[in-house]
C-alpha cells in the first residue's frame, strides 16, 4: 500500500468507527433539512387569489380557468382595476393577485412576448413564494402546450412581493441549510480531526514520518471533501424529491459550485487547525466564527438589506453569502455558471487566500 492511500484508509476508519462523527456527517444534515422543510410550510392549500384580467382574450381566460380549476387555488374574485388591489391585500382577502396586461394573447403571438404580473402577499414569504412558483408553473405549462414552445418561454412573469419586497424565499432553506451544514461539517470536522492528532501526540510521529506535510493535510481533508459532496447531493435530493424544490439549472453546475464551497470550507478548517492545539478551541472557533455568521449574515434567515450598515459590510466576508447567491441562481433561476462568475471568483479567491495562510502557518515542527 502506498503511503498516502494508507493514510486515507486510516482517516476513513476513524470516521466510520465513530458513531458521533457518522451521525454528524449523515444523519444530522438530512434531519436538519427535514425539520426546516416541515417547519416552513411547504404546501399551499386553498390559497385564495384574485385575477385582474385587463386583456380578456382567449389566452388569459384559459389561464384563469386553469387557475381556478387547480385543486389548491381558489379564485375568489375577478378584479376590474388596479385600485382594487390594495384593498384585497389589506383586508387579507387573497394571498396573490394575477394581472394580465392589455392585449395579452396578441402580444404573445405577435411579439413572442407577453407580460403577466403576480403580486403576492409576502408577509408570509413562504406561502408567497410557493404560490408564486405554483402559479408560474400553471401559466408556463399552458403557454408551452398551446404554443409548443420549448426553447424560450415568451412569457414574462413578473412576480412582485408586496410587504416584504426583498423577501427570503422559502426555497432558500435548502441552499441555506446546505451552506450551514457544509460549512460546519467540513470546517469543524476537518479542523478537529487535525487538532486531535496534535492532542494525541500522533502528529509528532506523522511529522517525523516521510509523509510530506501536504500529504498529511490532503489526507486529513480529502475524506471530508468526499463525504461533504455526498452530503450536499443527498440534501439536494431530499429537497428535490420530498419538498419539490425546483432545480432549474444543471446538476453539474450545482455540484461544481458546491465543490468549490466545500474546498473553501476545508481550507478554513485547515487554517483553524493551525491556530490551536486543542479540540475544544477548534470547535469553539468553528461554531462562533463560522456557524453564526453563516446563519445570520448570509441572508439565509434574515434579509441583509434590513441590517445596519456595518453588518452589511461584514457580510461581504461571509463566504456563505456568495455561495447562496450562486446556488440560488442555479437552482431557482436556472442560470448557468457564468451568470455567477463574480460569486464563484470570490469563493475561489477566498480559498486560495486561506490555503496560502494555512501553508504559512502549518508547521513542519512543533511550536
Amino acid at each position: 500500500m502506498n503511503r498516502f492511500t494508507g493514510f486515507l484508509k486510516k482517516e476513513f476508519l476513524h470516521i466510520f468507527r465513530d458513531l458521533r462523527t457518522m451521525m454528524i456527517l449523515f444523519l444530522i444534515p438530512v434531519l436538519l433539512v427535514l425539520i426546516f422543510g416541515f417547519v416552513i410550510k411547504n404546501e399551499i392549500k386553498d390559497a385564495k387569489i384574485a385575477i385582474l384580467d385587463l386583456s380578456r382574450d382567449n389566452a388569459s381566460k384559459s389561464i384563469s380557468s386553469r387557475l381556478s380549476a387547480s385543486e389548491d387555488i381558489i379564485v375568489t374574485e375577478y378584479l376590474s382595476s388596479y385600485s382594487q388591489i390594495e384593498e384585497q391585500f389589506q383586508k387579507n382577502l387573497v394571498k396573490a393577485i394575477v394581472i394580465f396586461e392589455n392585449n395579452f394573447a396578441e402580444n404573445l403571438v405577435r411579439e413572442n412576448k407577453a407580460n403577466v404580473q403576480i403580486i403576492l402577499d409576502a408577509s408570509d414569504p413562504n406561502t408567497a413564494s410557493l404560490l408564486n412558483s405554483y402559479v408560474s408553473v400553471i401559466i408556463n405549462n399552458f403557454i408551452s402546450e398551446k404554443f409548443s414552445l420549448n426553447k424560450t418561454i415568451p412569457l414574462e412573469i413578473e412576480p412582485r412581493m408586496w410587504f416584504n419586497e426583498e423577501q427570503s424565499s422559502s426555497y432558500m432553506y435548502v441552499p441555506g441549510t446546505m451552506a450551514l451544514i457544509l460549512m460546519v461539517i467540513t470546517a469543524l470536522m476537518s479542523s478537529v480531526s487535525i487538532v486531535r492528532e496534535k492532542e494525541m501526540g500522533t502528529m509528532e510521529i506523522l511529522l517525523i514520518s516521510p509523509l510530506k506535510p501536504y500529504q498529511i493535510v490532503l489526507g486529513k481533508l480529502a475524506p471530508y471533501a468526499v463525504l461533504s459532496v455526498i452530503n450536499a447531493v443527498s440534501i439536494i435530493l431530499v429537497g428535490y424529491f420530498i419538498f419539490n424544490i425546483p432545480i432549474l439549472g444543471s446538476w453539474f453546475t450545482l455540484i461544481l459550485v458546491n465543490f468549490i464551497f466545500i474546498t473553501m470550507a476545508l481550507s478554513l478548517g485547515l487554517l483553524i487547525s493551525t491556530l490551536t492545539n486543542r479540540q475544544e478551541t477548534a470547535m469553539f472557533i468553528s461554531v462562533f466564527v463560522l456557524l453564526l455568521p453563516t446563519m445570520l449574515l448570509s441572508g439565509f434567515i434574515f434579509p441583509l438589506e434590513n441590517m445596519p450598515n456595518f453588518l452589511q459590510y461584514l457580510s461581504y466576508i461571509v463566504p456563505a453569502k456568495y455561495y447562496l447567491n450562486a446556488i440560488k441562481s442555479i437552482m431557482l433561476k436556472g442560470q448557468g455558471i457564468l451568470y455567477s462568475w463574480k460569486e464563484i471568483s470570490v469563493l475561489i479567491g477566498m480559498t486560495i487566500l486561506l490555503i496560502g495562510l494555512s501553508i504559512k502557518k502549518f508547521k513542519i515542527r512543533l511550536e
Partner: protein
Amino acid sequence: MYEIEIHNLCKNFGKTPALDNLNLVVKKNEFYGLIGPDGAGKTTLMRIITSLLLPDSGYLKVAGLDPGKDYRELRLKLGYMPGKFALYQDLSIEENLTFFATVFGTTVKENYNLIKSIYSQIEPFKNRRAGKLSGGMKQKLALSCALVHKPEILILDEPTTGVDAVSRREFWEMLNEIKSHGITIVVSTPYLEEAALCDNIALMNKGKIISSGSPEEISSTFPEDLFIVETKYIPQTLKVLRQFPNLINVNSFGHSLHLVLKKNTVQTKEIVDFIENKGISNIKVKKGKPEIEDSFIYFSSSNL
C-alpha cells in the same frame, strides 16, 4: 563518530530557559538514558534531537545530519515514541501497526523479525482497539509502531512513566533486545533506579545536565562520604540526623537513611553515638557506595 553530538545547546520558551548549555554525545548502538524529574528538559531535548523543535543556539548533529536543515532525511532514520502513547485509540492493534508501517513506506512483514519478540505478545489480540488495551499492552504496541520501519535511532520519551515496576522491568528487557539489532537507543525516565540499566546516562535537572557518564563513573565521581544508616525508626532518625554538625544532606532510601558528610571528616562510630545520644537505639551505620539517586540529589543541590 558519534550518533548524536550536542554542544552548548540552548533553548528558551519565552523567558524561561528550557535547556541551558547542554553538552552530550551518544555513540552508535549505545543505550543512552536521560534521567531526571518532570521539568528537567528531557522532552524538549528529545524533540530537538528528532527535529521537531529548533534550538536557539548550539551545535547539534544526529546521525551525521543537521536536524535543522536535513530534517527530512533525518526523520527517515528515527523511530520516536512520544510521552503519551501516541496511538489511534479507535484503530485496532493491527491497524495501528499497519498504518505506521505504510506511512514509513514499509510493511509489517519486512521488519517482522525486529518487532517479533514484542509484537508476538500482543498479536493474539490484534483485532482489539488500542483504546481498550491495558497500559502494558499499549506500551508494547507503541514500541512496535516506533520500530516497524527499522530506525537507526530509537527515541523513547518516558516510556515507563506510570507503569508498575514489573512491566517496567519487562520493558527494559525488550529495549535490550532491540539494542542487539544494532539500534541506538535514547530513552528518558523519571525513575532514577532505571539508570543502572543504561550504558551511559545524563542526569538532568532544571534544563541542565548535572552529571553524565556510565552509572559506575557517576557513582565514582561522588566527592563526599556516604553513610548508610539502618534503623527501624526512619522519620525519627531522619529528624535527629538533620541536626548533625556540618551535614551536607540526609535522605531516606527505603528502609535506610543515606547520610552525606564531608570526605574523611567523620567516623561511623561518631554517627552511632550521635543518634543514640538522642534516645534512638539499635542503629547500624556503615560506609556505602552512592546510588544514582544519591548522585542526583548531591549534584542537583550543589548546582543550585
